[in-house]
Structure formats: C-alpha cells, structure tokens
C-alpha cells in the first residue's frame, strides 16, 4: 500500500491563492490571468508544480514553431476519445503559467483532478518544467531562430532543450527527423527516441540562402540535402562524419492534396499505410499533424482516434483562427468612394467578412505563411502587425530574413495594412520587397483596422506576431462575440 502523502499547509495556500488570483483577474476583466497566479502560488510553495502534477500522465510539446497547434491536436484527440485532459491552451508556457494551470486543475488540497495532461512548454522553461511534471513523452517540433534577444542563439536554445531532456530520462522523445538540430538531441541522451517526418520533398528545391543549420552540428562540414521540405528541414546528410536524417517511424509518404482549408496526406507507421485528412492548411501543419500522431501513438493512444480528430481539428488561439465578422456596408454618404459602396451592395455580398488570423513569430513561420497566402485562389486583403515587446522579442531584425518578396508578386493580394509598434519598419521592409508603397497603408489603431475589415468586400488575412495578435484578437473577438480562451469549453 502506498504511504499517504502528508497534507501540506503551504500546498493548500499555494493552490488557494492561485485559484483566487486567477478568478479575480478574470472577473475584473484584467485578462486571462496566465502567469501571475502561478507566481503567487510559487511564493507559498516553490515546488508546488511537483505536488499538483503528481501522478498526472503528461505529454510535453516544445520547439520553435507549432507547439500550440500540436498540443491542441493532441488535446482534442484525447478529449474526444473520452479522457479528461488538462492543457495550457492559453499559450502561457513558462513555469509560472504551467504551475497556474496545474494548480487550478487540482482540488483544494492540491491533489490533481485530471489524470492526463498535454503541456505546451517554452524551450527555455523545459529544464524547469520537465523535472517537476515527469512527462512520459516530450515532442520537439523544430528549431528556428526566434526571439534572439531573449535566448541568444539557436544553439543556445538547443542546449536549453537538451538540459530539459536530461532531467527527464524516463521520457520518450518524439523528434523531427528532418531537423538536424532537433534530431541531434538523440546523439547525447539515453532516452528512447521516436521520429516523425516527411518522406517527400516539398516546395522549391533551391539551396537555402538563409539557413539556421547549414553546417554539421557534429563536425562543422556543410550538409548535403537529398531534398528540402522547408527552411533548413529536409533529408540531410553530412558528407564527412555521416550524421544524417533518421528514418522516421511516423512518416508522411505523400502529400495528396493541399487546399486553403486543409490537406490530405498518406502516412505510414506501425507497418501500415493510412490516409490522413488534416483540417488545417499549409505544410507546417502537416508537420504538426505528423508530430501529434507520433506523440499520441507513443503515449498509447489508438491511431484511429487521432486520425478522426485531425479531420475536424479547429484552429487554436490565433493560429489560422477564423473569425466571421458581420459586414458593415457603408452608405454612399459615409463612404469616401460612393462607387465602391454601391458596388458592394449591388454585388449582394455575404453578410460576413471572413477574417483569418495566422500568428507569425519568426522568419521560417513567416515565409511559410506567405507561401500559403500566395497559393490562395481568390483575392484578399492583408493586415500585418509587428510589436516588439518582451513576449515578442525586442529585436525585429528577423523580418529581413522572411520572404516578403513573394508578396510583391502575389497576384491575389490587393492591399496591405501595416500595424503594431513597428509598423513603420514593416512598411520599409515591404518597400524593399518591391510592394508599391501606395498599396501599403499604415494604421496603428486597432479600432480603425476593425472598421476597415468590417467594410471589406474581400476576405481578410491577418498576420500578427504574439502581442499584436493578443490585442487584435480581442478586438475581433468582441466584434464577433467569440469567447476568450479561458471561457472556451
């Protein structure tokens, strides 16, 4: 018989304070209360996370891009197959936010009420989180340069992940086979490793002008590629020391269809070939789906459960998230352009403007999003927002490494609005990309941006970075009656 754990007063205080602070923050409309409640809890018991996650079976998702989407797919699949899942779906993925999530999901004595958790974890926070929640599976999606001023460099980020993995020797690693940085984790740790990847080239196969991993991480020689998928991902091999892409255990054999709303692929794993429909578009979501399937099956789930969920998977918090904005048609008097207003009415347009928000935080993600936009079959308007606050990274230099040049040649793109703290820099970037400056409008007021979208006769795509996404998402949610993430259920 297991010894009964002693009741600790500081645990009770930590959990109670955490729940109270979050509740107060949400009721007073001060936002999601994602980090502060956890900080308060840790004041009462530094290691409260260890207590409130005791016995919870956890999957952790980390990496530069795709954390939230991959975790979201996993959470949906687990929930839809009848499990009661704890997840930090707000995107608060540091120690404090994760602590808050577990505290609030525990009873007043600090005993977890849920048995399964899917936790998205910041790369730098993994070394604090992993030793406290003892995950059974750790997924590393990919590694790109991101928010350099917080972490220094990609190699530094990799070292941080490695030190997190070293503190969780029991965890099975689910690694991206095509990412030479990510898969190098397997070289240094004793953990069991499972790989996911694409057995097929994607996009143009030109050698990369900008790459985060050009040289072999083991010996420094330039990699050779049999094919690329995107950014530095691909079938790489070091001609000198032989370090090469591992054969993925969960492999996308072919991409059968790619459309604006999703993709169909054929996957091979466990000796079987299966068709998989993914309800989210673009190549990077194919990777997210493959990562999620690999993690789910490794965790002990039935493949059919996650494949069923992937088909209907909804976009998560700002990631390819859809808003249906009630359209306002300007009267002739209101409109600066009477002809346009008349056209809109005459055309008998839909009552809603479809707005789609695609969070973009680094050059790899940005270039992939632009590639997706350029593949669209109908005309659209584009809003790009760039803030440079702490959660975004103060350094915005990366916009010069993203492929905005493609936008200049994108035939269905009509006009571009730039917004956010660094809107002027974005406008300059677009000028250099070859976009005519008279097609670029600078608008830092979110209310005015909303008005523009409400009056748009075309679908609108919004490409914000993190904090600008939070702000504009709130404006769009208010206008569409969409609930905040903590009210979702």
């Amino acid at each position: 018989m297991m010894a009964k754990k002693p009741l600790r007063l500081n645990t009770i205080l930590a959990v109670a304070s955490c729940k109270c602070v979050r509740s107060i923050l949400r009721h007073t409309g001060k936002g999601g209360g994602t980090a502060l409640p956890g900080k308060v809890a840790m004041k009462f018991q530094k290691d409260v996370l260890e207590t409130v996650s005791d016995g919870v079976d956890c999957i952790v998702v980390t990496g530069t891009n795709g954390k939230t989407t991959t975790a979201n797919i996993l959470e949906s699949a687990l929930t839809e197959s009848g499990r009661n899942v704890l997840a930090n779906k707000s995107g608060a993925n540091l120690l404090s936010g994760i602590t808050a999530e577990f505290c609030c999901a525990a009873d007043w004595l600090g005993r977890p009420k849920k048995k399964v958790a899917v936790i998205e974890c910041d790369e730098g926070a993994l070394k604090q989180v992993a030793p406290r929640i003892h995950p059974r599976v750790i997924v590393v999606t990919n590694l790109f340069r991101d928010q350099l001023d917080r972490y220094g460099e990609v190699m530094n980020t990799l070292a941080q992940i490695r030190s997190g993995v070293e503190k969780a020797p029991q965890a099975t690693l689910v690694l991206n086979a095509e990412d030479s940085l990510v898969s190098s984790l397997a070289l240094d740790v004793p953990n069991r490793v499972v790989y996911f990847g694409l057995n097929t080239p994607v996009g143009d196969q030109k050698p990369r002008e900008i790459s985060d991993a050009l040289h072999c991480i083991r010996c420094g020689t330039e990699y050779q590629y049999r094919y690329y998928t995107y950014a530095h991902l691909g079938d790489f091999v070091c001609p000198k020391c032989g370090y090469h892409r591992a054969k993925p255990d969960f492999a996308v054999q072919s991409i059968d269809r790619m459309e604006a709303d999703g993709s169909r692929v054929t996957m091979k794993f466990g000796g079987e070939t299966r068709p998989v429909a993914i309800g989210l578009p673009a190549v990077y979501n194919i990777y997210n789906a493959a990562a999620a399937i690999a993690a789910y099956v490794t965790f002990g789930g039935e493949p059919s459960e996650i494949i069923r969920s992937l088909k209907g998977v909804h976009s998560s918090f700002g990631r390819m998230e859809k808003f249906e904005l009630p359209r306002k048609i300007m009267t002739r008097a209101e409109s600066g352009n009477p002809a346009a207003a008349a056209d809109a009415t005459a055309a008998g347009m839909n009552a809603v403007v479809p707005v789609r928000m695609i969070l973009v935080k680094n050059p790899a993600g940005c270039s992939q999003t632009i590639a997706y936009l350029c593949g669209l079959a109908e005309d659209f308007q584009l809003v790009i927002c760039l803030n440079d606050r702490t959660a975004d990274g103060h350094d915005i230099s990366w916009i010069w490494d993203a492929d905005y040049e493609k936008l200049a040649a994108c035939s269905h793109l009509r006009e571009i609005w730039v917004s956010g703290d660094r809107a002027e820099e974005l406008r300059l970037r677009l000028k250099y990309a070859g976009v005519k400056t008279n097609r670029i409008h600078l608008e830092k007021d979110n209310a005015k941006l909303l008005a523009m979208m409400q009056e748009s006769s075309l679908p609108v795509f919004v490409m914000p970075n993190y904090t600008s996404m939070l702000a504009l998402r709130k404006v769009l949610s208010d206008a569409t009656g969409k609930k905040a993430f903590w009210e979702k259920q």
Partner: protein
Amino acid sequence: MELNICHLYPEVLNLYGDRGNIRCLEQRLAWRGIDCHVTMLKIGDQADLTKFDLFFVGGGQDFEQEVLLADLGSGKGGEIRAAIEDGKTFLAICGGYQMLGHYYETHEGVKCEYLGAVDFYTKGADVRMIDNYCFTLGQESGGSVVVGFENHSGKTWLGPDVQPLGRIIRGNGNNGEDGTEGCRYRNVFGTYSHGPVLPKNPQFADELLRTALIRKYGKADLAPLDDTVELSAHDAVYRRLMNRFEADERD
C-alpha cells in the same frame, strides 16, 4: 559607374537579417542608375579581393564563427588586411566587427586570436547588452544619427589611433562605459548595430556608398532619393528611445 560588393561569409555571418544591408546598398545604387554586382564569398571560396570596392561582414553564431576562423587563417585574412590598408570600404557588424580586431577573450579567459586588421580588442562580459540604441556618427562619417539594435556580451576597447564610428546617445555601444560606438579606421566602418541597420538609416547607407565611389572614381554623385518611408522608420525608433529614457529619468 559601378560598385563591386563582396559579401563575406554570407552562409555563416547572416544571423540577424544581415541581408537587409546588402539589399539596401544594391537598391540605393539601382534607384540612382549605378550598377552593382554582389559576390558572395563563402568559406573555402577563392577570389581576387582587389577587384571589390565594398565589403560587408555580418554577425554570426559563436558555433559557426569557429568554422570560419580556419578559413581566415588560410590566407584570406591577409588579403582582407591588404584591402583595408588599400582604403577599401568595409561595413563590419557585431561578430564581423569583432573579427577585425586583435582578439576576443571570453568571460572565462579563453583567448581567440582574430585578424588584427584594426587596433582594438574585445573581452566577453557576463551581461549581454541588448536593446534598441542610437548614436551620432563622427563628422568624418557624415554626422547623422543612426538608430539600431545591439546584442552583444563582448566589450570592445579601441586603440589610440582608431576613431569610434560614433558617440552613443542612448544605449551601450562598444562597452557601455566610454560612450563610444563602433570603429572608423581608414574606410572601415565597424558597428554593433546588427542586422538591417542600413535600410532605416539612409544617410549612413549613402555615406558608405559615397566613400566607396570616391575611393574608386575620385567623386560620388548620389542623387537625392525619396526617403519618406525610410525616415519614418528611423524616427519611430529614435522618438521611442528618447521618450523612454526621459520617462526613466523622471521615475
């Protein structure tokens, strides 16, 4: 008229949007109808450096900087020193700037020998200097105000015969102590302003082009351009820096 630009080690020294600087130089020449050829010179590539007028060296990751030190040692280092003494124009940023000095000594005391082309050295410190910053270029470099972003833990100390590129208005620059930023030695412009410093500092960009053109042709005719978009990006950062620090001082 034409300029031949050499982008040194673009495959490793490209960490922070550095290609924005090359795009800027190319574009500001193209807008004026001046020809420009950019050559990428990678590790192991051989080329006659005397045919280039303007060199660009960016910043890189520590891991990758080790890879290129071997290449410098194989003879390219000597050619670079010769080009500098020959008055060729260099824009060297962050890691690329440090590389032109005598050495880099890490915080733990490990010394890494660099080119020694310009009389300065760099010592690692325990705090990274990271933020937007601004400085005034010396008169010999045009005297305009440059806004940029610095991200370095190395502190650079200039020798007696090397001028700083400018004087710090807000931020740290070379070492956060003596108010200097970057170096100006012959036609070498070294700076910690990493990434795409040139697009939003058009006067600085033109100063580099003018220096290279004068070295080659004895004169430079740079027609004025419409820099409205450029200067609005410049002014937005400058305003914020000045306001923020005023607010800090009031607190």
